[in-house]
C-alpha cells in the first residue's frame, strides 16, 4: 500500500462533496461570530457598566463558558437541552465566541487611557456621547488584531461540529475517508483547505487592520 495515493483525487464526486462542505463551514463561522458579537457585547456591557454585584455575575458567566470544552458544550446543548444538531452547533459556537469576544471588547475598552474620557467630559460631552465618539471608535481599532484571532479560531473550531454530524468539511471528509478507505490523503486535503481559508481570512482582516490603524501610534517604541 502506497503512503500517498493521489488517484483518489480523480474521484471528482467525492472531492466535490467535501468542498461543498465549505459553505456549511463558512455559514457556521459567520453565525457563530455574529451571535458571539451580539451576546459578547451584552456580556461586556454587563461586566463593565452594571453596578457591583451584578457585573460579577456577567464576569462569572463568561469564565464558566470559557472553561467548558466546545465538544462538551455541543453535547450539553444537543443531548442535554435537546436542541437540534444544527441549532446546537450554531448556539454552541455563538455562546463560546461570545465569552471570548466579550473578553476582547472589555480589554479594548480598558486599554483606552482614562485621561481621554476626562478630556471628553471636560468639553461638555455626555457620558453616552463619550462612549460613542471617543471610546467606541478607539476600542474597535484596538480590538481588530485579537478579534481576528478569535475569528480564525472559530473558523477552525467549526470542525468540532463534526461530533454533531453537521455536514461541514470535516464531517464530509470523514464520511468520504471511510467510504474509500483512505484517511491520510483526505485529511491532508482538508488541512490544506483550512489553511487556505485561514490565510485568506488573515489577509482580509489584516487589510482592515492596516486601514484602521491610528497614524503614529505604536510606531515610536
Amino acid at each position, binding site marked *: 500500500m502506497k503512503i500517498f495515493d493521489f488517484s483518489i483525487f480523480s474521484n471528482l464526486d467525492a472531492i466535490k462533496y467535501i468542498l461543498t462542505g465549505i459553505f456549511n463551514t463558512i455559514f457556521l463561522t459567520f453565525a457563530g461570530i455574529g451571535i458571539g458579537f451580539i451576546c459578547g457585547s451584552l456580556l461586556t456591557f454587563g461586566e463593565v457598566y452594571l453596578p457591583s454585584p451584578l457585573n460579577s455575575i456577567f464576569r462569572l458567566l463568561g469564565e464558566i463558558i470559557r472553561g467548558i470544552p466546545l465538544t462538551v458544550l455541543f453535547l450539553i446543548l444537543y443531548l442535554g437541552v435537546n436542541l437540534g444538531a444544527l441549532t446546537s452547533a450554531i448556539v454552541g459556537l455563538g455562546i463560546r465566541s461570545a465569552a471570548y469576544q466579550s473578553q476582547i471588547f472589555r480589554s479594548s475598552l480598558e486599554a483606552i*487611557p482614562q*485621561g*481621554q474620557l*476626562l*478630556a*471628553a*467630559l*471636560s*468639553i*461638555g*460631552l*455626555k457620558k453616552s*456621547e463619550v462612549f460613542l*465618539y*471617543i471610546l467606541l*471608535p*478607539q476600542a474597535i*481599532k484596538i480590538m481588530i488584531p485579537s478579534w481576528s484571532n478569535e475569528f480564525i479560531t472559530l473558523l477552525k473550531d467549526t470542525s468540532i461540529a463534526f461530533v454533531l454530524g453537521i455536514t461541514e468539511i470535516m464531517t464530509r471528509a470523514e464520511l468520504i475517508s471511510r467510504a474509500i478507505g483512505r484517511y491520510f490523503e483526505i485529511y491532508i486535503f482538508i488541512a490544506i483547505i483550512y489553511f487556505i481559508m485561514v490565510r485568506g481570512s488573515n489577509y482580509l482582516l489584516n487589510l482592515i487592520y492596516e486601514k484602521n490603524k*491610528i*497614524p*503614529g*501610534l*505604536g*510606531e*515610536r517604541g
Partner: protein
Amino acid sequence: MKEVLKVVDLKKSYGKNEVLKGVSFSINENEIKVIIGPSGGGKSTLLYCINFLTKPNSGKIFLDGVELTSPNVDLPKMREKIGFVFQHFNLFMHLDAYNNVLMGLVRVKKMKLNEAKEIAENSLNLVGIDKKLWNLYPAQLSGGQQQRVAIARAIAMDPRIILFDEPTSALDVELIGEVLKAIKNLALKGMTMLLVTHEIEFAKDIANEIMFLDNGVIIDKGTPEEMILNPKNERIKKFLGIITKEKENV
C-alpha cells in the same frame, strides 16, 4: 467686576486621606490666578473638583452665579463653559489635530460644519499650530504641539474660564516656551484663567494673584510681588528655594 468662578469651603477626601480641607477663593472676569504648592498638596484635585471630573464631598462652586454643586445642575452644560487643559494633554488619539478641536463644536455645540471649521481654524492659529500640522494625529505631534492643540480644543468652546493643570510639566524643557507663549496669548486676549504651574517666572509675569496650596489648604495668597519676591511664609520660602534649585539642576 463680574465674578466668574467662586469656590466656597471645598472639601474632598479619598477614603481617610483628606486632600482638600476647605478651600475658598473667587476669580473675576479677565483675571488670572495661579496656584503653586508642593506635589501632593491637592492642586490637581482642586481643579478636577471645579468641573466635577472628581466629585467634591462638600462645599459650593458657582460659575457666573450658577451653583454647580446643586443636585439638579446640568453638568455637561456647565463643563462646556469651563475649559480644562491637562498635564498629559489627553488628546483624542483616534482624531487628527483638526478633529480634536472640532469635536466639541460639532458634538456639543451642534454647530454647522462651516461655522465649526472656522472656529477650529482660528483656535489652532491662536495657539500657533501651523496648517501643516492640522491633519496629523496626536501620536505624530511633539508634546508641545499636543498641548497647544489641547489648548485650542479648550478655547474653541468659548469657555468662561480655563483651568490649567501643570500644562508644561510633562514637557521637555525646550518645548515649554511654545506652550507658555500660547497661554500668554490667551492672557492678552483677556481670557479668565486658573493655572497650576511650577513655572514661577511665568506665574510672576502673568498672574494677578498667586495662591499657595499646601496640604489641602490655601495657606497664603497675594500679588506676585508679595508671594514670590518677598514671601513672608517660611513654607513658601522653602518651596520657592526647592523649585529654583530644581531649575538650576536641569
